[in-house]
């Protein structure tokens, strides 16, 4: 739903192409602002929505995610220069998770890169970077444009998601993780990628806004036998913590928005150095990152923590030996599927080997009970089912 651009102030939050359906489904009327869009936080019941992600099939409106398109002969070379991974080695029809830095090697954002054609890429991310992307493309024969509003996207996640697609007439049995396929749909086309933000079996469906409601209805009808339901951002957030994923400006501050210089992080500090392709040639931030790696100057480590008990360590300060401030928690949850109490945290590297404690304030009937609990660094993801990877996907 749109208003005349010059009158946008009549609708301060934009509505996605699925708004007619999401607003009808949002019986709790719980909305949030995601990048300027009205988005459902919870539709009916957060726990049931989370359960649909892990047990059945869930629909999540992805439209507010920021999307950029890179087209032209140098598109791959330009993305090699912009991002940490080698976009040129991504085959057509492939997707990879990637990230990019400023020249000082500080993290700007992460996202997924889709290679739609030999000279055609789509980059999906959380924050907005157009001037940076355009400047990074200087000297390359490539066109960069923002296309967020031109795409309608839904995330279909859960162990039954493949079956639901099958029932909807989309044969995804041969589709491997991080691959995509295109097929005709309605008056347009539908792109299905085996990607998601839940760490479970799942797909993302991409079409044009004019096909959006048709797609929603089609999936809702096809998925009914498997209990498909729309899920809000709250349930998704729980699932993504379980999967160990980070969100820009929730788990780290995008360098272009960090007013305090010490708030920026390098991908090494964010434990994303595995994606850096050191051999592909120069990329933004390479020199600084190389110096950081060789000089071992990383100050921070982004880690998963195991927390005893069942009280989430939300916002906790982490101490080394109960006394020295060593870091802080950016996300914490009791994980219903993994049955673990975990946190994502920034820890100063020099304290990584110390005994770490989380200073947790648990609100109990208007009073905070203070818990000082020993925590241990643990592997991510916290939950990693085989069904996420199986091709063809299992029936459930």
């Amino acid at each position, binding site marked *: 739903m749109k208003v005349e*651009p*010059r*009158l*946008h*102030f*009549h609708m*301060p*939050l*934009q509505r996605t192409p699925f708004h007619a359906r999401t607003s009808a489904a949002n019986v709790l009327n719980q909305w949030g*602002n995601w*990048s*300027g869009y009205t988005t459902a936080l919870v539709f009916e019941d957060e726990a049931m929505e989370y359960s649909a992600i892990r047990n059945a099939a869930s629909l999540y409106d992805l439209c507010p995610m920021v999307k950029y398109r890179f087209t032209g002969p140098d598109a791959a070379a330009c993305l090699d220069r912009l991002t940490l991974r080698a976009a040129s080695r991504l085959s057509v029809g492939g997707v990879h998770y990637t990230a990019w830095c400023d020249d*000082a090697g500080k993290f700007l954002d992460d996202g997924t890169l889709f290679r739609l054609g030999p000279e055609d890429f789509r980059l999906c991310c959380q*924050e*907005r*970077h*157009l*001037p*940076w992307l*355009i400047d990074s493309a200087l000297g390359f024969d490539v066109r960069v*444009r*923002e296309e967020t509003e031109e795409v309608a996207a839904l995330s279909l996640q859960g162990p039954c998601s493949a079956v639901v697609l099958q029932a909807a007439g989309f044969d995804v049995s041969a589709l491997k993780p991080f691959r995509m396929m295109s097929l005709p749909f309605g008056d347009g086309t539908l792109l299905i990628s085996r990607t998601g933000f839940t760490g479970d079996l799942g797909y993302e469906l991409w079409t044009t806004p004019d096909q959006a409601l048709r797609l929603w209805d089609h999936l809702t009808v096809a998925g009914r036998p498997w209990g498909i339901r729309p899920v809000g951002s709250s349930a998704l957030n729980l699932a993504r913590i379980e999967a160990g994923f980070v969100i820009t400006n929730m788990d780290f501050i995008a360098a*272009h*928005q*960090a*007013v*305090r*210089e010490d708030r920026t992080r390098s991908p090494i500090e964010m434990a994303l150095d595995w994606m850096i392709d050191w051999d592909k040639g120069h990329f933004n931030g390479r020199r600084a990152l190389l110096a950081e790696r060789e000089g071992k100057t990383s100050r921070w480590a982004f880690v998963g923590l195991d927390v005893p008990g069942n009280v989430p360590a939300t916002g906790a300060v982490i101490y080394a030996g109960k006394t020295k401030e060593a870091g802080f928690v950016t996300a914490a949850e009791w994980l219903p599927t993994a049955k673990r109490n975990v946190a994502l945290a920034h820890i100063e590297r020099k304290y990584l080997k110390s005994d770490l404690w989380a200073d947790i304030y648990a609100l109990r009937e208007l009073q905070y009970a203070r818990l000082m609990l020993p925590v241990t660094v643990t592997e991510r993801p916290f939950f990693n089912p085989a069904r996420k990877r199986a091709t063809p996907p299992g029936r459930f």
Partner: protein
Amino acid sequence: MTWDAVIIGAGHNGLVTAGYLARAGMKVCVVEKNDWIGGAAVSRELFSGFTYSNCSYVSSLFRPEIMRDLELPKHGLQILPYEGGAVMMQDGGHLGMFRDHDANRREFARHSPRDAEAYDRYARDVLRHCRFIRPLLLRTPPDPSSFRPRDLAELAWLGKRMFALSEAQMYDMIRFWTMSISDFLDEYFEHPTIKAYQAVASIIGTALGPMSPGTAYVLLHHAMGDVDGNVGAWGFARGGMGAITRALAASLRAAGGEIRTGSGVAKIAVRGGRTTGVVLDNGDEIAGRRVISNMDVKRTFLGHVDEAELPGDFVKRVRAFKTRGSSGKLNIALDAAPKFTALPEGAPFIKGDLHFTDSIERMERAYDDWKAGHFSRDPFQDVMIPTMIDPTMTPPGKHFMSCFVQYAPPKIEGQDWTDADRDAFAKTCIDQIESYAPGFRDLILHMEVRTPRELEAEVGLTEGNIFQGELTFDQLLFNRPVPGYAQYRSPIRDLWICGSSTHPGGGVMGAPGRNAAAEILRDAKMPVKEMSDAYAIP
């Protein structure tokens, strides 16, 4: 009787100093030449039922520490945030500014998709510069040539802050302090109107164009205030800007201070290199142990002190202190709200600042006229209608419109302003508004026109400079107003200065007044109590 402190001028800084001194236990008398108080933070009813903000017209810089210390809310002060703003474009379009981040992005995107996404980084950088400067506001600048422990400690503090910056930030900071706003904005934005809106705060009150080096800092000066912690936000004082000085006066009186209006100071009495009080225009002598001048540095030392009492070098530097007037003001009582054809019905930014200058180049051309000794033929106007938010200033349905106009030189082609010049100036401004809001002229019930001539004659601002001296880097910090005298002192013992000519400068900030009070109390070996520490966010 002999007062502990005689303060010349009941402007906001004079009243702030007076308030702190009175609370510290001094016997304080403020003398004011006008029949009313307020200086340039003044609200007068010149047309029945209409209250104006006759000079300053918006508030952001006024330090919350002062509001709290002097209990101004208890004495009636309320600051109301206002909503965004807009530039009307010559092609009939508009650029709105919104308080909401995403609304701004969508608005920018109508004009330039690239600029729409440039704002985050721009805002980050401006905020970084703000965070460096803000802690300096409520501190007395160190004297870099002094070896007093306090100066050394203060210099060390400043140096430590500087060296806490990364190398890249240090470069950016030094460039920013010296560059033009036009060059600074070019690094972020491409659209002329987006740049023109952002440039506004860097030319206000300054006799420089947006392409003049040094103007980027002036932007910062306007961006480092806050309304309730929202750095960069601006608001109205409920009841007009005079509400600030009314509250300050009430607070002062409650603390036992006295204010005498209706006769200005003819002369500051000096005996043996030390002041003994003031002599008023009406012949009254007021004896004081110390005299604190809220007048600008030129008016204080070139008009009211025998120059023979002053070191020649000091006089020379005071004369050279730049106080070039650059602005005028129209205060208009309106029968109804004006209708601007470029602005969509119901847009919130009618409650904010409205401009017609839609490019940096047009702004610079307006400055060219000033250089030639004339007011701008196509002036820049900062138009606000506070009654869109404040219900107390006019009868219902009527409006008060404040038009800050730039550029207007202190003299017209070297000659004093005449009434005919003033009327031609007003006509130029009204014609401009009329061209964006047909029928506007017919709504005017009453109008007060102020050129630099009126600002000097009535408010006492030399050459009509609203900041009591330009806010360029050569006139800031330990160089404000002149090197060696940046600590609110003067060459004459017990004669102090507390106005905007001193650090940290102009705007209705109150910081010079508070800093001066702190120095005076320290000098008098009185405890600096009831002065809270500067609020700081790590």
